[in-house]
């Protein structure tokens, strides 16, 4: 016998409304690319067609943006951020640095500033004066700078959770620093590095403002900016192309996640809790 519980019905009802709110755009995102006549409302296509993709794939600039520029920029940001964050966080966690807790917190505060809209003008001037305007390096460095504080914060928290005794046991066993890093530190850090790397990749992949401002050359722009290919001079979007390109645009991120998850799994090695 179940008792009628009005509170529960209310919660369930609200959940459904909330779910619809989030699911509806996703439905458009999945159906529209295959619809020869899409509009801005969700509708099941009358006929499935791949014409939209053909339009997009035949656009050389858009495809280069997606398969070369975006992959290169995001990949570089990912590798640099993960490597630098791991090293910095290791120092902050294990090193004997005075005020390291405050340092970490202040770093986190900076994260919202560095790549925020408000700082775009100084960043532009800085990059311009460094001679990095209209280069990949300029965009990559700015993106890495933006991703590092949060990454360091996450990594530090992760490293703090790894018992120091792992390294100490290895030291006593006779291992040198390099050996400890390779045999003990790196494998135990890997789950944390993967999380930070994926976050950095996704962040760079989706960033729009920074590449838009720092890269002028249309052939060098990443996919997030290349969406403009499919807007007419008056700003009218070619919905068919935008829909198809949007779907293609998400695939690499999805693939990366699946690959990493299948290969390593996003699980954390626990310490001993007793």
């Amino acid at each position, binding site marked *: 016998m179940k008792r009628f519980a009005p509170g529960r019905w209310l919660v369930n009802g609200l959940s459904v409304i909330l779910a619809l709110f989030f699911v509806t755009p996703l439905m458009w995102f999945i159906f529209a690319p295959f619809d020869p006549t899409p509009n801005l409302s969700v509708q099941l296509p009358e006929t499935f067609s791949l014409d939209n993709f053909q339009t997009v794939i035949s656009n050389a600039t858009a495809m280069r943006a997606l398969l070369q520029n975006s992959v290169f920029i995001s990949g570089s940001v990912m590798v640099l951020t993960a490597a630098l964050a791991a090293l910095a966080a290791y120092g902050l966690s294990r090193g004997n640095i005075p005020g390291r807790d405050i340092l970490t917190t202040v770093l986190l505060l900076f994260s919202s500033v560095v790549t925020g809209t408000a700082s775009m003008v100084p960043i532009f001037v800085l990059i311009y004066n460094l001679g990095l305007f209209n280069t990949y390096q300029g965009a990559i460095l700015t993106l890495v700078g933006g991703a590092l504080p949060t990454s360091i914060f996450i990594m530090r928290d992760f490293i703090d959770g790894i018992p120091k005794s792992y390294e100490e046991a290895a030291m006593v*066993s*006779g291992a040198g620093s390099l050996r400890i890093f390779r045999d003990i530190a790196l494998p135990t850090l890997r789950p944390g590095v993967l999380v930070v790397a994926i976050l950095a990749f996704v962040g760079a992949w989706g960033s729009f403002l920074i590449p838009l401002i720092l890269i002028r050359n249309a052939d060098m722009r990443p996919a997030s900016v290349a969406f403009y290919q499919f807007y007419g001079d008056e700003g009218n979007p070619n919905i068919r192309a935008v829909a198809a390109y949007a779907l293609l645009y998400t695939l690499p991120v999805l693939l990366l996640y699946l690959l990493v998850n299948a290969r390593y799994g996003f699980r954390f090695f626990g310490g001993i809790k007793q």
Partner: protein
Amino acid sequence: MASVKLAQLRRTFGTVKAVDNVNLDIADGEFIALLGPSGCGKTTTLRMVAGLEAVEGGQIHIGNRNVSTLPARERDVAMVFQDYALYPHMTIAENVGYPLKVRGVPPADLQRQVQLVADRLQIGGLLERRPAQLSGGQQQRVSLARAVVHKAQVTLYDEPLSNLDTKLRLEARAFLKHLQREVGVTSIYVTHDQAEAMALADRIVVMNAGKVMQADSPMAIYRRPANTFVASFIGSPPMNLLPCKVDQAARILRFSDGQSIQWSQSVPAQASDEVTLGIRPEHLHWHAEPAEERLGAEHFVTQALGGESVIVLRLGEHTLAIRQFTDDVPVLPSRVWLSFDPNRVYFYGADGMLLS
């Protein structure tokens, strides 16, 4: 295997003297327990021997090498950690074999040695598993195996049994003692559990506030605590300590609640005004009738513990305990008179040191 010598070892953290002028000679093959309350410096001392904590002053010798400034990896010590420190990404075999792998032992030889030690520690069937799949007791044995396979000159134990539950701890203690007999390697064992230290060690070093309070065989430490700290730390319940005044001429002891008793036993010559009388709870006896040499006290509570009972008494503001070995719960009147086993009474001076 080698002897270990600590000479005037010092280490401070901020203003705290964690290790304060510790001197200790450990013979080849000896099993030493560093025993003391939290923060007494026992773990810091151990970590300095391991090379995980810098030596601030003094020296550490292992065999005839001065290792004071050597990095941990060159000291040739093995260490068992409180949290076991088993590498989570390696199998049990890889964990146990790691010290050998680092030394470049050929794989076939390494595997043979790992199997040998693992069988001896009864974890031979677990070698392909990972640490997370093992119980606490098994993980503990793996960490022991890693230390044994190392064949180091000294093995260091940092409270290795404190993460186990009581039953497992007793098993592991027996196991460790047996292993120690077989392997016979020089060992330093840090613990805050006096029963563990008593059961395992050839010699116990009691520490407090960074200083060595007493270093002696377990029974000697139990029988003749060198000072009131050791007296009040060792034993369960610990030694009874009662302040009193000695009248040497009249052979009278005066207690703080106004009682005085005849004392025909010998009293150390230095014992004068302010001394502390110490007696173990099992050497104190109660009687229903008074006598000249008996001290009156109020019965407070009796705790029956199975094979023994602990009787708690009040004497003025002081609490005394009697251990009576019986499985009948003793019934006491509200006021009792106490007698002392002769030769089991110790006197401590105003500075807390044993008078003899």
